[in-house]
């Protein structure tokens, strides 16, 4: 160990301790539990792959996983698209209101989670904001019942939470772009849309991918939003995992399910990476801009 670097090791030692003891170790234990034998609200220290066998074999879990993947995917697409629109506007067209928009976006990331999800009940309910507005405007005769307590309500609520995050991630990248590249494309005859497609979008591809991956993973594993807004049809795997731990008491099965949804999400995200790479949205090589 280079002596001049020793202070660095000392300074980072606490963080290393925290990471090893409180991040790596718990995840290892969690993985370990998924291959142990269940005991009510505990485990027996005898290894078995039974839990994974059950996950693989019982259809009920795969229905839930499929639904969760669907929610994760749609939420991620919506969040990234809307986030990109917002970020693009702030980066290139906002003018004087730039910092206001940026500040509002940033604050809404931090503006609560549980209470925001809960608020959608009042917005989408039969006597809620949307229905009352539509009734008053005479656009409908009876309140719409399909706004709430289904998968779409879950997606809307999750997108509401993740759009600002995607916007900020993408903005950070767009703000770092050198305008000369876009200028060069325009000089060579591209119109605004072409310049975007050929230059801006590929250069921001990494940020788009990052935002997508993050939103997908967190949405697919959410367990609170489906309970509040999902109703009878919007069940997701996260709730089942929670149930296994807090109600049924089968921890190994819960852990196995938890790892399964993580693995499935990772596969989907890797798939997206491939697609983006093939589509030229993740340019190879160093960062030119």
């Amino acid at each position: 160990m280079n002596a001049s670097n020793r202070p660095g090791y000392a300074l980072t030692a606490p963080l290393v301790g925290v990471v090893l003891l409180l991040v790596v170790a718990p995840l290892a234990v969690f993985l370990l539990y998924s291959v142990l034998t269940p005991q009510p609200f505990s485990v027996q220290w005898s290894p078995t792959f039974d839990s994974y066998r059950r996950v693989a074999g019982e259809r009920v879990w795969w229905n839930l996983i499929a639904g969760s993947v669907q929610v994760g995917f749609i939420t991620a697409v919506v969040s990234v698209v809307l986030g990109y629109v917002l970020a693009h506007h702030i980066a290139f067209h906002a003018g004087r209101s730039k910092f206001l928009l940026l500040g509002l976006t940033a604050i809404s990331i931090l503006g609560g989670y549980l209470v925001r999800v809960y608020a959608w009940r009042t917005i989408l309910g039969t006597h809620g904001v949307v229905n009352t507005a539509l009734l008053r405007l005479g656009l409908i005769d009876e309140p719409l019942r399909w706004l709430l307590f289904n998968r779409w309500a879950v997606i809307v609520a999750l997108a509401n939470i993740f759009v600002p995050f995607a916007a900020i991630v993408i903005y950070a990248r767009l703000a770092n772009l050198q305008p000369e590249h876009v200028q060069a494309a325009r000089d060579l005859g591209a119109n605004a849309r072409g310049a975007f497609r050929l230059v801006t979008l590929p250069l921001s591809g990494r940020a788009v991918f990052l935002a997508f991956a993050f939103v997908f993973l967190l949405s697919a594993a959410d367990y609170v939003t489906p309970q509040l807004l999902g109703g009878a049809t919007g069940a997701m795997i996260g709730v089942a995992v929670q149930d296994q731990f807090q109600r049924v008491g089968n921890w190994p099965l819960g852990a196995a399910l938890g790892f399964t949804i993580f693995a499935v999400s990772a596969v989907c995200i890797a798939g997206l990476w491939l697609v983006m790479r093939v589509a030229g949205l993740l340019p190879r090589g160093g960062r030119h801009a």
Partner: protein
Amino acid sequence: MRRPGGLLAWGLIAFLYLPVITLVVFAFQESPRLGLPFDGPSLRWFEAIWNDAGFRRALWASVRIATASCSVALVVATLAALGLRRYRLRYGSALSVAAVVPIALPGLLVGLALLTYFSSVGMRPSLTTVVIAHTIYVTPYVLMVVTSGLEQLDPSIEEAARDLGASPWQAFWRSTFPLLWPAILGAAVLAFALSFDEFLITLFVIGGDSTLPVFIWSRMRRTIDPSVNAVATGLLTIVITGAVTALSLALMARRRTGVSYADDADSTATAVPLAPAQPGEPVRVAAGVLGSENG
């Protein structure tokens, strides 16, 4: 192309704030119904929850937890940020990635991993386990904020101070810290707000006590009335105040150092490059800083 884009952007902002506005408006509802028509404004629900012992307990628990986890995270993450930034460590990039894992993973997995971990070492769920959980949840944010704060500073200033004979601590305290403290304070405030709002992980590691979000969650399972909104409004006030404060500190530091300043939630880094330092400047600045100690 400017106008329709602007409309869309502001429309999106309105969409983002729709739940928050709805929540707060209905906290002032007069009748117990959580639906339109609105028959307020009334403060009865705020009064009701203020008189609720369970609410006060939850609020106090949240304050204590946030303070504790924020303090620990601040120390651990600031030290680590300095270490990672100033020195080349073999595990440097691995550490940076690993430290971010708690916020990259879903709260479900982090919470359950902690639950099984505590159970395996025989630790029962309590407010202490919540503090531990919040500490690892908040540390990545603090790390990111302080790191980006450090990135905006010219390291040669501190080096110059070292060359002039200052100890590492003196060099840090005298030359780096005066420029870094907005980042540190901003990180602290941000961490506090994040801890207050954290719910997904907390639900698994908490025992019979309640933090404020957990209190709200159990209230939601009863016959609901606007008192839930009143509590939520209180929570939002705390969290958003924290967020605004953190951002303001970011802006303030921006003006002070004269360079664009970034924190995790607001990457305002533009393409403006740092003005090249005059050769003698770092020495001059450092000398001035050290000189003030002697004179």
